[in-house]
């Protein structure tokens, strides 16, 4: 019975986070259009894109490693969906003692799948993109983990459900100075994870055509887009649960989700693309410094 339940949780996670992610992707496009004084696409635009891409021919380039080329997006989707399933099951069904560590590991897999996708394409632009993605991965992962460590230091547990409970007893993490700093460090590092604009060097459309995903077409491209959308919704939900007290009140929870999404889109639309050396300097300098500062504050109890 437990297996059927777990399967149900994973399938539910796929549908819930898939739908929320597609709508979040549309919200991002619409808000971007409004910021640029345009009208923007209608609400079903991302569904139309996805359905169209599943109906197109999938071209596999001659120099590519076929297995890795097709497996990379699937691995990314599986990792993001399992992260979502752990978030759901941790809050409702099976609380795990170490689920924060598992989530940190699982959230690394999409970036690695992008690197594998670029490296297995057999295209020059894609391999340049893969190299950049690898450097990007190295640069944002340290501040991301530091930001997630702050509540652990404060509450002394690595169980996400326990942290949510403690936030309801005391104060939400965002209410503390340390949590506030960690939230922003985490959000900026997360924007590197999904490759949004200040950190989109690996996919830079104007320099590298489409970077790591240049050779993808048809269904495999659709899976990559779906992976990005699911990663967006899972990541934002994780931030809402981890720093803002979770979805215990659904209406307020959805408002929190939209607030974080708006914050991400605003950062995306008001910053130009950084070079890879600037990103490395920024994240190992400022972001890491603020992350360490937040950990010290958390240890002092602020």
């Amino acid at each position, binding site marked *: 019975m437990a297996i059927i339940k777990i399967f149900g949780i994973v399938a539910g996670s796929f549908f819930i986070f898939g739908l929320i992610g597609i709508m979040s992707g549309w919200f991002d496009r619409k808000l971007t259009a409004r910021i*640029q004084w345009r009208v923007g*696409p209608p609400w079903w635009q991302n569904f139309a894109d996805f359905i169209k891409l599943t109906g197109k021919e999938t071209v596999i380039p001659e120099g590519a490693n076929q297995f890795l080329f097709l497996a990379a997006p699937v691995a990314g989707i599986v990792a993001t969906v399992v992260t979502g399933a752990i978030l759901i099951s941790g809050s409702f069904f099976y609380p795990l003692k170490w689920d924060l560590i598992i989530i940190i590991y699982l959230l690394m897999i999409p970036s690695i799948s992008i690197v594998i996708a670029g490296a297995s394409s057999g295209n020059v632009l894609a391999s340049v993109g893969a190299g950049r993605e690898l450097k990007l991965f190295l640069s944002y992962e340290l501040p991301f983990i530091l930001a997630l460590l702050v509540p652990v230091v404060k509450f002394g547990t690595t169980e996400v459900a326990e942290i949510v409970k403690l936030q309801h007893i005391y104060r939400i993490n965002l209410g503390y100075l340390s949590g506030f700093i960690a939230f922003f460090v985490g959000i900026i590092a997360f924007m590197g994870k999904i490759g949004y604009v200040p950190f989109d060097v690996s996919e830079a459309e104007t320099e590298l055509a489409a970077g790591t*995903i240049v050779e993808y077409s048809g269904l495999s491209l659709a899976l990559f887009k779906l992976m990005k959308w699911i990663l967006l919704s899972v990541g934002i939900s994780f931030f809402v649960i981890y720093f803002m007290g979770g979805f215990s009140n659904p209406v307020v929870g959805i408002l929190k989700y939209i607030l974080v999404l708006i914050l991400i889109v605003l950062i995306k639309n008001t910053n130009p693309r950084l070079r890879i050396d600037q990103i490395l300097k920024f994240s190992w300098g400022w972001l890491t410094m603020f992350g360490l500062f937040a950990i010290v504050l958390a240890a002092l109890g602020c």
Partner: protein
Amino acid sequence: MVLSLRKKALKKSLFVFHLSTGSCNNCDIEILDCLTPRFDIERFGITLAGSVKHADVLLVTGIGTLKNIERVKKLYQQMPKPGFVVAIGSCACTGGMFRDGYTMAGPLDKIIPVDVYIPGCPPKPEAMIAGIVKLLNSIK
């Protein structure tokens, strides 16, 4: 049913790849005009794709010079099907004032099959949108 849904989706979300085969860049500038706030073709789901592998429509400008025909053929073959070709500007449609030039390798339809012709030097963004609407109506 799935097929008709996919066709509907294709009509609502065209990814456009834009290729210059020896044009004077005026048509290219006018293509980019379609993306500006005044015309905003993203309303209809049309976006510029960075790579031809993502594209549904190949927008070709320019006469198609001797050096370019190989690349045009390759890009047409690389475009995942179903895909469409739109010839933009007088040069791509007929050769225009360069029809007797020594680098002329024929107007575009001598090189690859063309679905829609949009004449003009350069065509206005309104004309391009009208051409794309004709393309959408021709998808059966």
